[in-house]
């Protein structure tokens, strides 16, 4: 639905729905942190940004134009099927070798233990990354006044 709906705002709303469904899948796989992350960052922040962009562009129904190139749809089917076949092939050919996942794998405290323990350095580097992102956002998006 995200890519077939012609109305971009509707497509964003469907995207939120699919993210919610995805986060439920993650909860079932006991990836609670990832689920929370999806809802908070994607559902909350990034899609708001998407809506902003769409509203900024100020698209009207009439401006949406005709159907995209006719070749796109069959091509998309072909590539989709190939990708699916590849995924199945890979999944079949791989002998599952789970090296014992701990019992509370994926729970929030466990993520915390890893994030603030083993992965201190990437974690701190992430803050630098976010700082660089803030600077980038300001530099690029700030309207410059003379």
């Amino acid at each position, binding site marked *: 639905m995200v890519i077939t709906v012609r109305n971009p705002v509707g497509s964003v709303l469907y995207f939120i729905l699919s993210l919610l469904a995805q986060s439920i899948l993650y909860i079932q796989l006991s990836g609670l942190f990832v689920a929370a992350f999806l809802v908070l960052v994607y559902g909350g922040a990034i899609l708001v940004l998407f809506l902003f962009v769409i509203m900024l562009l100020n698209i009207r129904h009439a401006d949406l134009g005709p159907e995209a190139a006719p070749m796109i749809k069959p091509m998309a089917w072909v590539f989709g099927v190939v990708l699916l076949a*590849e995924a199945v092939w890979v999944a079949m050919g791989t*002998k599952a070798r789970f090296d014992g996942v701990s019992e509370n794998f994926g729970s929030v405290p466990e993520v915390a233990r890893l994030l603030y323990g083993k*992965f201190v350095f*990437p974690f701190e*580097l992430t803050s630098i990354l976010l700082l*660089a*992102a803030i*600077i980038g956002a300001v*530099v690029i998006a700030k309207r410059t006044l003379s």
Partner: protein
Amino acid sequence: MINITPLIPELFLLVMAIVVLMLDLFSSRRTVVVPAYVSMAAVIITGFLVFKFGGDAVRWGSNAIFVADSFSQFFKVIILGAAFLAIGSSFGTADRMTHHRGEFFALLLFSTVGMMFLVSAKELILLYVGLELTTIPLFVLVAYQKTNRASSEAGLKYLIIGAASSAILLYGLSLLYGYTGTTYLNEIAQKTAVYFLSHGFIPNAEGTTDLVGMGPAFSVALMMIIAGLTFKLAIVPFHMWAPDVYEGAPTPITAFLSVGSKAAGLAAIIRIFDGMLYAFSHDTMPNDSWGTMMAVLAAVTMVAGNIIAIRQTNIKRMLAYSSIAQAGYILIGVIAASKLGVASCGFYMFAYMFANMGAFAIVGLYAEKTGKKNISDFAGLSKTSPIIAALMTMFMLSLAGIPPLAGFMAKYYIFAAAIEAGYTWLVILALLMSVVSLYYYANVVRIMYMVDSDNKHHIIPSFPAGLVLALTGIGVLLFGILPQSILDMAYKTASSFIF
């Protein structure tokens, strides 16, 4: 507690980047000189710190997360050198910007830090975060000239391609983690090696052996990692972003992009592939399919880069295609997967840094002065500014690999390594392509010296730009005539690899 002394150079540079940022924020004088000189000084001091605190590793438990071995030191010197030269040649660019001058240098330093982490990371997550820290400031820097449409377009293209390639790389890394259950490169190497020793090598249809024996997911993981990293290096099937981005970005950033991020990506490839995969595969299977695949990539890259470069009229596009071709030569050293291969890669990158940074500095200077960017606009340069023309000639010939210059020695060692590893056909192709490349490099020289024009622009570089030109010129000459010291250093870098 964890011993963090090997991290001191990176930490210092980070602090300095924030200082540069704050300096611009809280000083009333809006001058470009202060943040630029502070950044240059910071880069030089970091260079010294890299040597002072080298040799050790940051560990978590018994596994190294971050190593400051001689290999990373060597590549850090190249990266810092590229950053220094890029800052030096961006005085003019930054001066013409009306806004956000200080951030320009701060972002450049952030990106440099990211590259330094990338070459030292021995752990997949740190590697990935380092890569992101490298590219995100670069997205901004590429799009820096907001009013310039080409720059904005380049920024957008780079952002989309960069994000897509990061996603592919991340998927590959997570598959690798799923396979081995660890993110430490040394453990991954051990586990795959143990797997091979216990299961034996499974011959495929052609009678050669390959890593497909691990099951298709493992191959997919490696393919994705290769695809992600070669995107960053602009190796041929994944090169299409490079010309547009190189053309649109501010010239010093183009230079930094083509040298710094290439060096960092190359180091990451060597670490992942030569450090862990070839470590156990090369002796047992000299014709393994991964090597062949990479060799084909290198061959296609050289052919496409060199042949398309001939037809370019814009000098930045020409240099962009030439840098694609150069990446192909460098990849040959990776494929050779020997001590000599790694050493020649390092030396090639070193020589390439001087020639490329110098060439881009001249292009930037010329465009600043005259606003012209076509190769034909360089006509008559030898009359108006003979020194600049002579330097440009040197850089072009070094890129082409003409004897007394650094580029020749670099190519020579790369080819020697490849022949030693048995890739004779690749070397023959590379030699042919070098001849092709001579055509378009020499064309620039021909236009500068042979073609007359009423061009009256006398180019006088400012002090920092002059410094950059002098340093690169000396570098190209010196390391062409006396390559031994750097080569010894480069050879030492390979000592941390087991082949």
